[in-house]
Each structure stands twice: as C-alpha cells, then as structure tokens.
C-alpha cells in the first residue's frame, strides 16, 4: 500500500514514503515538503525506487536481442 509516514519532533520532520515505485515517491512527498518550507536533507532511496528503471533496461536488452 502506498503511504507516507511523518515523524515529528524537535522542530524536524522525518518523512518515509513506502509502496511507491520509481520517482512516484518524490511526487507524493513534494507538496508536503513545500508546506514545511522545503529544507530537505538526507534523502535516501530505497530498493523499489529503482524497480522501474531496472525493468526498462531488461526490456531494452530483450528487444535488442530479438532484432
């Protein structure tokens, strides 16, 4: 399930987006980052962020092989 979790304390907010593939997580959190002032630090990508890009690469190789 796609969800964004916010942990708020000491004037800071930790944001954890889960269940999104590719760059959809960035789009999901953008509006929330902006309303908090946009001062983002320490962004770490997780495994499924790269899933779409990997799948496309495999498809490209497959098409090249058939040609």
């Amino acid at each position, binding site marked *: *399930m*796609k*969800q*964004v*979790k*916010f*942990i*708020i*304390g*000491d*004037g*800071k*907010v*930790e*944001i*954890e*987006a*889960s*269940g*999104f*593939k590719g760059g*959809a*997580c*960035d789009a*999901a*959190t953008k*509006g*929330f*980052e*902006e*309303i*908090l*002032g*946009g*001062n*983002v*630090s*320490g*962004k*770490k*990508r*997780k*495994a*499924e*962020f790269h899933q779409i890009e990997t799948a496309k690469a495999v498809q490209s190789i497959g098409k090249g092989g058939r040609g």
Partner: protein
Amino acid sequence: MSHVEQVETTLVDIEAVKAACTRLGVEFVEGKKNYKWFGRHVGDHPLPKGVKQEDLGKCDHVIRLPGCDYEVGLVKLKAAKGYTLAFDFWGPGKMLQKKFGNKMEHLVDAYSVEALKLQAKRKGFMAKESVVNGKIHLTVTGF
C-alpha cells in the same frame, strides 16, 4: 519502501499556523505588526544573525499566550519563503519558552502536524495521527 528524508521546518502556511495555535490553545493575532517584549536591547545578548536593533519588536503577525506579558512575533523571511519566530526570552519570556520550547520547537512541531494534515486534506488523502515515544506520527494514505 521508497525513500527517507528529513525536513527542518519553516512556517510557510498561515492557515496551518492558525490551526497550530488552536491546537496549543493560544491566540493568533493576524496582521499585528509589533510583538510585546522588554522594549529595548540592553546589549547583554548578541542579536540574531541578520537582525538589526531597529527590527526588534517588529513583525507581520503575533502569537499570544494568555497570561503572558510577552508575545511571539512571526517575521517574514527576507531571502526565503515563510516566517521566522521572534521573541524576548528574558523575564516573562520564560513563560513563552515553557509553553513553546526553549527554541519554539513545540510550536514548530504543532505547525508541522497541522500543516501536513491540511496538505493531506487539500489533496483528498487520509491522515491518521498517533504519539509514539514522545514523537507525533502522522500516516497519510489514499495516493
């Protein structure tokens, strides 16, 4: 999991500030251009970075704590979007620190929660709030 990040909050949305004030049981005085403080700089503490002596006491909105002689001013940032918080921490200012935190962190956290809930509502998402180990957790779904 997709990504993890951290945001140092700046107050940018006045509707969220109003909601934070309601949450904390304090008064938001929109458009008040002066916040109550000692009234003059005695030189015992350096001025905040970027602040001139003639700026002290001036603001764009005020947050008032019932029973406290001093107030918190919201001052528009010059080089960025949003507001900074200005207050005199001496004497009656101790009451402001007790309520809002030594560096206004409780006020900022209240703003963060209300701003995030407001943004979720504006986008048609669901937001669920809980407290875990003293920190507020907000889970947004419906993407």
